[in-house]
């Protein structure tokens, strides 16, 4: 039963107020993109056992989408941040590195 703080309205929202939206920071590939890129965007998922960057919507609250960094094993939440960015904030990445030395996820500077 997660609680996540909505970075938009500040509410510590109960899971029942939220809608999960899956992996975050996927780059959209539209018409003309090759099959690999499109498949990677729409279907292939990092699905890590550990730190996960993911999308949530505060559906039964302010209605805004936001991002969360969360451990899929312990449910630790490293932070939440705006959905209106293409990569996690550096201070959050630093904080995760401090708590989980050597953690890896896909290279966020590369297109998915």
């Amino acid at each position, binding site marked *: *039963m*997660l609680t996540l703080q909505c970075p938009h309205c500040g509410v510590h929202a109960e*899971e*029942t107020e939220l*809608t*999960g939206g*899956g*992996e975050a920071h996927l780059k959209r590939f539209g018409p003309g993109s090759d*099959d*690999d890129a*499109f*498949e*990677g965007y*729409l*279907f*292939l*998922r*990092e*699905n*890590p*056992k550990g730190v*996960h960057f*993911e999308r949530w919507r505060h559906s039964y609250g302010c209605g805004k989408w936001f991002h969360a960094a*969360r451990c*899929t*094993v*312990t*449910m630790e939440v490293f932070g939440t941040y705006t959905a209106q960015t293409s990569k996690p904030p550096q201070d959050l990445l630093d904080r995760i590195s401090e708590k989980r030395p050597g953690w890896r996820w896909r290279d966020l500077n590369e297109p998915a």
Partner: protein
Amino acid sequence: MKRYSAFAVAREALTGHKGWERAWRKAQPKKRYDVVIVGAGGHGLATAYYLGKRFGITNVAIIEKGWLGGGNTGRNTTIIRSNYLQDPSAAIYEKARSLYETLSQDLNYNVMFSPRGVMMLAQTEHEVRGYLRTVHANALQGVKTRFITPAEVKKIVPIIRLDGPRYPVLGALWQDRGGTARHDAVAWGYARACSAMGMDIIQKCEVTGVRQEAGRVTGVQTTKGDIACDKLGIVVAGHSGVVANMAGFRLPIECVALQALVSEPIKPVMDCVVMANTVHGYMSQSDKGEMVIGGGADQFNNYSQRGSFHHVEETVRALIETFPMLSRLKMLRWWGGIVDMTGDRSPILSKTPLEGCFINCGWGTGGFKAIPGSGWGFAELMAKGHSPLTEEFSMWRFREGKFIDESVAAGVAH
């Protein structure tokens, strides 16, 4: 392998049951096998069994990070049915169901397959039409189902409420040869048979890497040392992405928690499986008398085998609407399992970008019922390179747009 029978039990009873041998041998890994299967759950063990039984491939190791049958095989609600809409699904699930019919005899192990019937309630006009379509499709697929009236529903399941104030029952899709089986026994029965064929089941052995040369698999690294193999089958529901990552590819899969619960045992009141998809809940009664209950899956990535309680609330609420007498029973135990969800909620049984490496995953919430069919088809795929049963379940179907979408007929696909 000593055969099991009532006679054998009686004979052993006279000598204090000292003569029973191990159900499966304790094995240490050899240096090399023809085939290594990662994952000693139902699907992995069934694959190994049919590799031996159908194709004579018995130099096989099944390696398991925990204890055999300890993943989703031992955590599901044991429903067996094949009333699927799409041809590829109906084919593999009906193959599985028909193998279940004789599995106890084939394995000489009572898996308690109980074809008590599976009923899927139609509670909206849309659902009625969806199930009518399924009945028509099933008739052409060789799956025996029919659409039954509310009166027939009530006759089969006296504890059901037909005229609930919110979603009255308008009829149901009925498969009389669907049912349940004892989940642990399926894993144990296959394990015993695999062991008897000379295969090695290696428990508490975790895969830490996949070895390859020039795009071809050569073996696995494990916590019990390196093991070489010609072919590798990855059958690790709930961890598919982790092992695929070791083999160097990604999957169209996300892992989420699926929860289930049982009530305290009561005397028999329900002799079939009932699924109510409009309200999201399903229930059967075990041979011990517990009401076995399941519902929808959680919505976020999860490897913890713990789910969120509000789903349990919703499921119980839905079932009390359907079976009001449940209100005065008590929940005995709740648990969660981690399931693989694919882009179309149908499984993947496929070759992979790594030659010689095959993957069987993505069964979502409905893997148990498929175990024998999945093993049958996947063994054929691994042995021969193709199988009509697995043909459509390729991992490349998503990029082609060739989905196998079952949500068309039934919202929940357990």
